[in-house]
């Protein structure tokens, strides 16, 4: 069984430390949620896990399927089975959704077998159509330029579509609920739930509890100031919804204060 294991992770961007010793393990089949106020490093964690070059790991380790993830480029991490649904997916003008997805599938196939001729077109079309139907996407969507002029909801659906096609073992959803109305949120969540199961581990990063009404986590973690400071079951999310983050902050500062004494 695949697992993503993060140990004492310290990450800086432009010389400023954002993650300050984060520990977390996500196993295939589990759904974890990371919650926390803005500016605590949630997106930094997502980008670092995927290997964005702007984020420098200064200390700690990330292991995935027995491999040191820090030694792998972003494309290798993806082919190993890691996926990031971006908070702000970038537009790629001139490249259609279909062309992009076919290239991504073929990259996987060629990595496994350099002689591979690529996915047969009819097989690809069927796969794409099936997944798009599940996400209630018009078939014309496949011919549009990737994320170019997409609405917020379309971008997020396109992220989930990619996840469905690429079949990761661990998926990180970075603020996938942001910018979605309730209908879009439901469609996106249904998409994630349809993919969730024993073969998929999910790490949901969210600011609001709202998304967790649709995607039910097994574990909830609270992140503050670059660390996970509180972990629990689904109840923790509800508690945060009711009481906010202030009590966690107070508790954390108290502990921190004791530690520094």
């Amino acid at each position: 069984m695949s697992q993503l294991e993060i140990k004492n992770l310290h990450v800086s961007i432009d010389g400023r430390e954002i993650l300050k010793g984060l520990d977390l393990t996500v196993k295939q089949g589990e759904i974890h949620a990371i919650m926390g106020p803005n500016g605590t490093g949630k997106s930094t964690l997502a980008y670092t896990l995927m290997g964005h070059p702007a984020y420098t790991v200064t200390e700690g380790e990330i292991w995935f399927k027995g491999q040191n993830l820090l030694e792998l480029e972003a494309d290798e991490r993806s082919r190993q089975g890691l996926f990031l649904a971006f908070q702000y997916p970038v537009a790629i003008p001139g490249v259609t959704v279909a062309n992009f997805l076919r290239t991504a599938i073929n990259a996987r196939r060629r990595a496994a077998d350099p002689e591979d001729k690529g996915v047969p077109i009819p097989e690809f079309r069927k796969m794409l159509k099936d997944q798009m139907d599940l996400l209630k996407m018009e078939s014309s969507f496949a011919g549009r330029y990737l994320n170019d002029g997409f609405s917020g909801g379309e971008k997020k659906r396109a992220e989930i579509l990619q996840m469905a096609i690429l079949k990761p073992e661990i998926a990180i959803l970075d603020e996938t609920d942001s910018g979605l109305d309730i209908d879009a949120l439901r469609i996106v969540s249904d998409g994630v739930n349809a993919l969730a199961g024993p073969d998929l581990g999910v790490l949901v990063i969210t600011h609001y509890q709202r998304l967790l009404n649709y995607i039910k986590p097994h574990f909830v973690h609270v992140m503050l100031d670059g660390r996970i400071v509180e972990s629990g079951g689904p109840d923790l999310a509800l508690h945060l919804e009711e009481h906010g983050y202030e009590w966690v902050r107070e508790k954390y500062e108290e502990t921190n204060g004791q530690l520094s004494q």
Partner: protein
Amino acid sequence: MEEKPKIVISRTRRPAGTPQDFAFSAEAIPAGGVLEDYRRRAWEAFRSLPLPTPAEEAWRRTDLRGLPAASLRLPLPDAWRDLPPVPAHLLRPLTADQHGGQVILLPGGSRVELDPALVARGVVFTDLRTAERDYPELVARMAGQTVRVEEGKFAALAGAFGQNGVLLYVPKGLTIDRPLHSVLWGPGGGLAHLSHILVWVDDGASVTYVHEAASPDEADSLHAGLLEVRVGEAASLKFVELQSWGRGVWNFSHERIQVGRAGNLDWIFGAVGSRLTKNFSELDLAGEGATGRMSGFYFADGTQHLDHDTQQNHLAPHTTSDLLFKGALKGRSRSVWQGMIYVAPGAQKTDGYQANRNLVLSEEARADSIPGLEILADDVRCTHGATVGKLEQEPLFYLKSRGIPLPEAERLMVEGFFDPIMQRIPFDGVRERFQQAIHQKMSLD
């Protein structure tokens, strides 16, 4: 694309070097025939015009000092027999399943095929030699009518010595369904290939014509070409022009297509070869309601230098032109695009558009993009845009995060960059050819 508008205005002028001149003599001019006077005039112009230097505005960014003009030879009759043959892929149809006709121009020779059904309907599609002999009136009515030999040293050179050429005439009202195809194959280091192409799509006629020029990678050689095209009243021409000259070729051409009243031109242009290219492509919208679209694709790598000068001349009212040239550059290559929209006095209600977009893929490559407008009428709509950009990092990371290795991610983005050009090309075969060029150039280091 991370793009910023770029207009280069450079006032520095290099001191004019002294490029050596050609050593051709008047004895090499084909004697007799209907073009005798024309060739004599061209020879006079050739003798009186110096080789262009960067002191001339049009040549400011393209330096000919390395051109070994004096050592170039004209191919002898049947020279092709001892030279590499035309590769099969150049002879395949690009725009349909089958050709209506094909002309292959070789050093010192040619091969011609034309569907007998088209011959019976009065279509002429043949090499220039044959045309001079069999259709002297047509040749006389076309040569020198659209491009003047005095326009430049290389126009005069091609006019005087043009050993190789094509004549295409489509009679009034005739629509040709199957495309016509010509290939100019120019093997042989040290040779000067001179071509002269004449096209007349008569009133109400319609045709697709593809012309390709290519050669193997060899030592220095030269191509100078003239292209004179007339699209008659309410006539329609789709013209595809592709150059994949070898890396040793110094390539020069003067091209002008004149479109008559309510005529329509779709001009597609691809350039991936040559050592150095200087190409003048002009569109004359000469009759009221004429429309012309120019779509250019170029990709330079290594030390290639591609210089395209385009001109959209609105000479009559209610004319429409639409130019989009897109280019990518790798290695230490250089491109120049200099475009001008000219609107003549009285050419009211015209609509002119020009855009040039460049993608620079290496630190050492450079693209100059110089749009221009000269408008002498007061009720017109003319717009232009020019950009030079690089590949952005965020989209590359996004593609990589989906498992696509960097080289492929870059290729995908370059293809995306060119997609607006591909969308304008109504031929799968031509699009595939461009895709192959992208593939090839992107995988070279």
